[in-house]
């Protein structure tokens, strides 16, 4: 699905990613773990297409297309979804209206006709139960006045509506209590299908108890220093980053 080769990325002249190689196939779930400032979020943002991140070297192939050539909305319409670490507030923009605009923009891109209002309401009421969100959130402006947990659940709710091919979860677990974490995980797990892929960016192993990844990568100082299966996450939790880094260097 996505193939990243020798990716180098700068922000304001500082090199953050220093040669990332990663391939994620359809049906797989990958977890990217690493200490603060290692470049995890940068990787997610670069895939989504944030303009502040400058790719200085390397390439990214997505569904056999050059991802780096596409604009942000084009990537979204091609099925790339980023669950934001800090979801943005849109004052006055009704949550339902926003979702419908997004869904219809993507349908239009795919040459499908706009979703019927009734059909859309059915879809929404279906997914909102899945995320255990209050109906009242639908009528409120996007993310405005939402609690931290509501914002994160709203991201996964949007994801459930938009049904992306490649979902990037940027520290979706931070700020969630254990119940919310379970709900979010349940939402994500229903998205795990053989035609979809998920990349989870996280500090902690905690989320991975609920969303069990197929692969785990440890990102340190802009490079993936170690890759393995779900046991690598457990090892990390036990030993801490320092020892893994030392072992990797040894």
């Amino acid at each position, binding site marked *: 699905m996505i193939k990243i080769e020798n990716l180098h990325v700068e922000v304001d002249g500082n090199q953050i990613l220093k040669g990332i190689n990663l391939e994620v196939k359809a049906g797989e779930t990958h977890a990217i773990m690493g200490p603060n400032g290692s470049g995890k979020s940068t990787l997610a943002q670069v895939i989504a297409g944030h303009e502040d991140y400058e790719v200085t070297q390397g390439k990214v192939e997505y569904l056999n297309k050059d991802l780096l050539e596409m604009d*942000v909305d084009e990537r979204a319409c091609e099925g790339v979804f980023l669950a934001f670490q800090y979801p*943005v507030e849109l004052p006055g923009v009704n949550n339902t209206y926003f979702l419908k*605009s*997004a869904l219809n923009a993507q349908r239009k891109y795919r040459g499908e006709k706009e979703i019927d209002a009734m059909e859309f309401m059915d879809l929404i009421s279906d997914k909102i139960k899945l995320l255990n969100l209050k109906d009242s959130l639908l009528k409120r402006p996007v993310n405005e006045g939402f609690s931290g947990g509501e914002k994160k659940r709203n991201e996964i709710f949007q994801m459930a509506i938009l049904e992306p091919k490649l979902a990037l979860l940027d520290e979706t677990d931070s700020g969630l209590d254990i119940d919310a974490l379970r709900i979010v995980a349940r939402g994500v797990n229903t998205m795990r299908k053989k035609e979809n892929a998920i990349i989870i960016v996280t500090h902690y192993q905690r989320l991975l108890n609920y969303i069990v990844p197929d692969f785990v990568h440890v990102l340190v100082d802009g490079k993936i220093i170690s890759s393995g299966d779900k046991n690598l996450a457990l090892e990390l939790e036990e030993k801490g980053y320092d020892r893994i880094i030392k072992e990797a260097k040894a």
Partner: protein
Amino acid sequence: MNQESETEMLKEYAEQEYKYGFVTDIESETLPPGLNTKVIEFISKKKGEPKWLTEWRLKAYKIWLKMDEPHWANVDYPPIDYQGISYYSAPKNASEGPQSLDEVDPELIKTYNKLGIPLEEQEILAGVAVDAVFDSMSVATTFKKRLAEKGVIFCSISEAVKEHPELIKKYMGSVVPQSDNFFAALNSAVFTDGSFCYIPPGTKCPMELSTYFRINEPNTGQFERTLIVAEKGAYVSYLEGCTAPKRDENQLHAAVVELVALDDAEIKYSTVQNWYPGDKEGKGGIYNFVTKRGACRGKSSKITWTQVETGSAITWKYPSCILQGDNSKGEFYSVALSALKQQADTGTKMIHIGKNTKSTIISKGISADKGQNTYRGQVMIKKSATGARNYSQCDSLLIGDKCGAHTFPYLDVKNTKSHVEHEASTSKIGEDQIYYCKQRGISEEDAINLIVNGFCKEVFRELPMEFAVEAQRLLEVSLEGSVG
């Protein structure tokens, strides 16, 4: 958005065409430029006015001569040559005044069609009674008959002077006196037409009333006067729309609007103003210097001003409410967009006199390109206004980094048993907001529209349905091609 695309966006925004900039080719009778007592007497005579009104005008002229043009507003423009303006222009054929739409010059009808207000169609479809003011003459008033059945009077002010002199004499100048301000005095001296509306006691006006204003002739000023009187328990919703052709010279529009609401009456006054804003160099465009004021004279009366201001080179406008009657209410909802080199200094005044009077002010200023947007509002609570309450909210949205937003709230509270609240915010359309929308698949242009509409929502929902759609479209058109 990076710097480059932002610049590109602003460039395209500035280059966007004003689509109402056509000129209508009809024969008209236009007075040579200049202002003196002779001109005023000519206008008065032309309109067949009674002597008291001629004298009323002359008195206003004398007051005006002694006044200075106000310069406290946060706008900047070269001096206006009041002798270089023609104070009377009217379509020639209409000098007799048309009796029905059939008698209206077909060229005029075409003009209105271009503006998107086909009178015939509106008659049938929208159920909106339109009084269309073209330069100085009121061209056609539709729906007169249906309104007459309810006792509602809706006609041009010239006609009202002839048909209902007692009402005009009683109310005209009672809210905005001739001496009120420089532009109001000028208007009182030279006003040429406008609308008059009277709703009898206990009557709910059966339809939305509406006026379209258009300035067609070059070098003319438009000085219309609108007077709306709602008797005890009456209700009316009134809409006003404005456009003008593209001209290199600036044109002056100095209107006066007076509203009077008696006991338990309610007046809703909505404006969508789209006068020609001038070009990107700031050349041409309308100077919109307007005095609008409503008097809540009766107890529990209510006046609501809703305005969407997207046009004009310069806007100087403060629709206000005098809350005289106990328990009366005043509301002001405003969206003002300043792009290109437009300057808007607009806001409201809420003057609380009666007990338990309430006022709400919601102002949304949008600045783009080199636009300068100023909110100026005054809330005055007089000693007598025990239990008065005011809530003000002024929000500014900036698009790009060459524009400006300014807020000047004045509070003057003389009664300790009153409550005044003011909130203000300034925000820039965030790159993060646009990025967030785009990441969900929404294009940059749609993202901006989505955010701007969200910002204006509290005001749009106060507009009558058709107008809300028009206002939204107007903003969209104004922001069209704003993405590089």
